[in-house]
């Protein structure tokens, strides 16, 4: 198995594949080349958890380095327990780093936590709300925490949810009466409401019906275009990753084993491993497992949605 961990170039902070792609491949959506720090910089990040007493720490994220350019959608693929959600939580300031550093537009997630919090938002696989409250009450609560005026928050909530196919008259009833797909759309609206410049989407379409999945996917594309947002997307859906992501990184047991555009990965797996030029083959080739596999030794924090 070839392992090519991406390391950032010292001058440009762009990751350089240790084993470069044979030929340059087109990037689906060119990231904007602007001066200044990248939208997201992850450098040498490791996170361990101790599960139970007298047990050796489990390494959930192992020396991961990557960067996400402004306006870029970066996909993270990995089996359950592979470290995707832990990495997202580290970026979200919900976990502290053992080693390494993460910066959002030059702000360190640990030293400048409040500034980072104002720039990011996150959607996770579980649409967590106060279930008795209506979607509008939940959204207003979120908006107020981020300092948005109520009138703006109401108008934006209605606009975003209408774009996702949820009508205004649906927003006054308890959230618990909504389907899983509708709740997930409200969760996406909650994240978008605060106009994050970095949006962390942790399996946002897992468990959704095909129609809702398409709604969310096309909305993600709109968000990148209209809001100038940089997005990290974790997913189990290879077609989704191929459709949405400018570049894809594959995590295996907490390590970033390869990254590149979908086309580059497909070409490499065909050239280097003699396999069919698909993302599924690429995933199998670099991890030795199927995307649906669960990693046995999952971290203490990785028991649900990774």
């Amino acid at each position, binding site marked *: 198995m070839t392992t090519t961990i991406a390391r950032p170039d010292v001058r440009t902070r762009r990751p350089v594949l240790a084993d470069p792609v044979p030929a340059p491949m087109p990037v689906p959506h060119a990231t904007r080349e602007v001066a200044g720090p990248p939208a997201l910089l992850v450098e040498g990040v490791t996170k361990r958890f101790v599960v139970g007493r007298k047990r050796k720490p489990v390494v959930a994220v192992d020396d991961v380095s990557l960067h996400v350019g402004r306006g870029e959608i970066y996909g993270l693929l990995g089996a359950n327990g592979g470290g995707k959600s832990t990495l997202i*939580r580290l970026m*979200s*300031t919900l976990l502290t780093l053992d080693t390494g550093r993460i910066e959002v537009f030059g702000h360190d997630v640990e030293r400048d936590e409040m500034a980072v919090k104002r720039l990011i938002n*996150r959607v996770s696989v579980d649409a967590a*709300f106060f279930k008795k409250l209506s979607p509008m009450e939940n959204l207003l609560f*979120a908006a107020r925490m981020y*300092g948005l005026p109520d009138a703006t928050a109401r108008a934006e909530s209605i606009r975003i949810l209408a774009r996702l196919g949820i009508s205004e008259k649906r927003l006054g009833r308890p959230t618990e009466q909504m389907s899983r797909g509708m709740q997930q759309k409200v969760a996406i609206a909650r994240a978008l409401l605060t106009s994050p410049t970095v949006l962390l989407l942790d399996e946002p379409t897992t468990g959704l019906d095909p129609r809702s999945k398409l709604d969310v996917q096309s909305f993600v594309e709109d968000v990148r275009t209209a809001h100038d947002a940089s997005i990290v997307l974790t997913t189990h859906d290879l077609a989704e990753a191929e459709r949405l992501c400018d570049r894809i990184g594959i995590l295996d047991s907490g390590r970033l084993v390869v990254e590149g555009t979908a086309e580059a990965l497909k070409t490499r797996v065909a050239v280097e491993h003699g396999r069919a030029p698909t993302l599924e083959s690429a995933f199998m080739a670099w991890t030795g497992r199927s995307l649906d596999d669960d990693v046995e030794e999952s971290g203490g*924090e990785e028991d649900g949605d990774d």
Partner: protein
Amino acid sequence: MTVATRELRASYAFIARNFSLSRRYWGWELAFFVYALAGALAISFIGAAEGDPSLTFSLIIGAVFWNYLSTVFSFIAETIAWERWEGTLEYTMMAPVRRSSQLLGSTLYAVMYGLVHTAVILVVLVAFFGLDLASANVPTAVVVMLVGSFSIIGIGTMAAILPLLYVERGAQMTFVLQSVILVVSGVYYPVDVLPQWMQVLSKLSPATYILDGVRAGLLDGASVADVMGDLVPLAVMGAVLIPAGLWAFGRAERYAKRTGKLKRVG
């Protein structure tokens, strides 16, 4: 928007959210109110059975003001536990809100909720037992309650840490702590009747001083100056416990982020 405005707005977010929750759970609110009222009545009837108006009034004060203190304490202490139950804890913790603003919002709502709840119960009980408040010094009781609230907020903030540190048992621990405060604070009896070791605990409980000061004001007509012996310990406890609670909360949050305990739902 200035930092202060933003933080006040964030505090308001928690007040508005908690009000919405009370409104949405109105059936439970009604049930809890009836239970609290029935409990206060049942205890006060012990005084009526003895034919001792002073004892009845003392029990009413214990029942009513314990209702206030326990309501404020549990609202603050369960701030984190609620979010765990709903699964929203991570979203709240990653919002750009200072913990002091979050706790201020939760605390203000708890105090407002507790005052309304308690005032209604007090009015019902006073009317029910036909109590004469002519000789009571109400301002003294109000001052003691206000000063005492700070220390209860401080203890509540410290108790709120427990669900942050212990995913499942934290809420149980806050419940046990509240029960201990009830037993040692002389809510329904003088603390002199407690065993010596429990009397030591009673001196550490702000509820002891609050109930003592309120009783002195309402039963004996004591002035604010007369209850300085209660007010000084309460002021000291408030001044120490609130900053200590905020500091400890920050440490606990850091620990939860290091160990991944923000994620788990209770």
